[in-house]
């Protein structure tokens, strides 16, 4: 999966300083009374043909980033470059035509397919929109697309309700592939599916990437899903990136207390280690992005801060995303105390070494 061979030079997708805020309307006059800070100063890059897993709990802003990249949301500031071209500078007809190169696979295949269209109509839409193959060959292309996602080409006259969840997601993937995109944003592609078919869809995505050289941004809410698919992993909390690293690095040596907490929720295959493991239960709910905590946004729920006796710095100073280990500049974490975080955990189980229950 994540080998170091052939790391391409320039990033394919580069997101820089992305800020997305939604206005809160209030009063009779519907004036803006505040802002929900959904995404705050997020930067990352994905090399061509590779996968970045973007992980965070609901409300962390991960979906908002995905939607900003496919130009459904309008970011307040920042840049999004695909193959060097600034996507945010596009508009109107030019944007419409460029949409071919970045597509999206949606979380819920039930609601993202028009219930009144047949599979053939659903797949014909992107082809028609972008004038793809000369109309005579369109049916052949639709059959080919269905074959690519492992569906029977005879399905074209069927409606979405006639399919299982996994099959519907395959239709959604085929629709994204129809325009031959370079980048696909997969927004929780398997969260709405039965556990038994999740792996099949992940395998399909992986296989398609190898075959077509696609670049993926895979959005997920747990690290287990992303581990399977991603070369690099970025962890988000409340609109900010808290840690980003090569997948192996992140799973082997997490440096942010939030990442450590997420990892503690992923079961490990070693039974003995699993028995010794204790989960970190984060207390309380994710704070409101309309009124985010000062300093480090995670400080209100941080188990490490409790252990360290509640240092002031967490409350007052926004931590920058920096490599805790200078030897591995690709691994960056936004914590004031990454060394303490690593020292506090057992390297075998990645769980804080025995002391009183953290955060309780």
């Amino acid at each position: 999966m994540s080998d170091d061979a052939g790391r391409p030079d320039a990033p394919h997708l580069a997101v820089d300083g992305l800020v997305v805020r939604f206005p809160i309307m209030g009063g009779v006059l519907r004036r803006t009374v505040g802002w929900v800070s959904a995404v705050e100063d997020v930067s990352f890059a994905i090399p061509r043909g590779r996968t970045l897993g973007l992980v965070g709990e609901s409300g962390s802003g991960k979906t908002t980033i995905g939607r900003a990249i496919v130009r459904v949301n309008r970011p307040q500031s920042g840049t999004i470059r695909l193959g060097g071209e600034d996507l945010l500078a596009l508009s109107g007809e030019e944007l419409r035509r460029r949409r071919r190169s970045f597509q999206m696979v949606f979380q819920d295949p039930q609601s993202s397919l028009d219930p009144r269209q047949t599979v053939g109509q659903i797949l014909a839409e992107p082809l028609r929109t972008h004038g793809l193959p000369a109309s005579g060959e369109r049916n052949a292309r639709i059959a080919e697309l269905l074959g690519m996602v492992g569906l029977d080409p005879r399905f074209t006259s069927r409606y979405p309700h006639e399919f299982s969840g996994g099959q519907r997601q395959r239709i959604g993937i085929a629709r994204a592939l129809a325009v031959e995109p370079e980048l696909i944003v997969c927004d929780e592609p398997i969260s709405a599916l039965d556990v038994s078919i999740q792996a099949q869809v992940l395998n399909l995505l992986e296989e398609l990437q190898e075959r077509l050289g696609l670049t993926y941004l895979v959005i997920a809410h747990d690290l287990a899903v992303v581990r399977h698919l991603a070369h690099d992993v970025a962890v988000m909390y409340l609109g900010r990136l808290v840690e980003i690293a090569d997948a192996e690095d992140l799973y082997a040596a997490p440096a942010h207390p939030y990442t450590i907490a997420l990892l503690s929720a992923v079961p490990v295959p070693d039974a003995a280690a699993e028995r010794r493991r204790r989960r970190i239960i984060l207390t309380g709910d994710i704070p409101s992005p309309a009124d985010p905590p000062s300093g480090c946004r995670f400080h209100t729920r941080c188990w490490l801060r409790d252990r360290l006796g509640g240092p002031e710095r967490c409350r007052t100073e926004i931590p920058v995303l920096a490599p805790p280990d200078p030897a591995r500049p690709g691994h960056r974490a936004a914590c004031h105390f990454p060394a303490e975080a690593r020292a506090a955990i057992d390297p075998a189980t990645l769980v804080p070494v025995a002391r009183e229950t953290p955060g309780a």
Partner: protein
Amino acid sequence: MAAETLAPAEAERAEQIVAGEHEGLVRMAVRRFTRHRLAMLGLVTLVTIIAIAALAPVLLPMDPITPDYENLGMPPSAAHLLGGDLSGRDVLARVIYGTRVSLIAGLGSVVVFVSIGTAVGLIAGSLGGVADQVLMRITDIFLSIPPLLLIIVFISIVGAGLGSVIAVIGLVYWPQTARLVRGQLLGLREAEFVTASRVIGVREREIVVRHMIPNIFGPLTVVATFGVASAILLEAALSFLGLGVKPPTPSLGEMIASARTPSVLQEQPWVWLPAGIVIALIVMSVNFVGDGLRDALDPKASRRG
């Protein structure tokens, strides 16, 4: 490769789908509808009533207009199965012709208000912005005028008659349809499959035509059906008040109006009761059919089973 990644269960399901268990949206709706007992009962009753109203003038030639002074207020007899009314006209003939008038008024006004409402709702919902604001405020104004006042003013200007009844009922009911259509469009704008089309780069206009309009047909059909029932009731009420069709044209509401005389109400039920029963039957059947349609036309309700 990809095809082999299908699990056995999914492969089996694929076979089923291909093997002809396939069902179009129309057939699925028909299957769901026919399983709805009350709706089927309503449909059968309604079809019977419509058939009688349509065919009776041909099959049993009766005159609902010319008075027969032998039959003045007479109880049911062999010559006049439902007796005669206060002007000596055959009640059965008047009920049948009155039903025709009611059905024409009901269906006609639905056509009028669904057309106006859909047009206004579509323009407001798909254009948004200023057009939306202006159209919806006009809608609000219509909704805030008491219907009876609107009707009386309208009828006193254009005069009574079947055409005016249809027009005025259409005028009273279109705002609800406009709101429904606009609301549906606003909901659909946020639907994931519409977002998916935007991501593909489909033009807004095409999204409205290909995705939004087809998806409001279901709710619109249901509203139109229930609208038929309300319109028939309103027509009866207007005729009852003398604002409906012009006499001597028979109307169910006008027949019931004769029960305003206490002696008729107490002693000559054959004059007004048949009309009342027919109205109740029509309205109930239409409502049952509407219920059935509501369940049958929602493709998300339950997939097969």
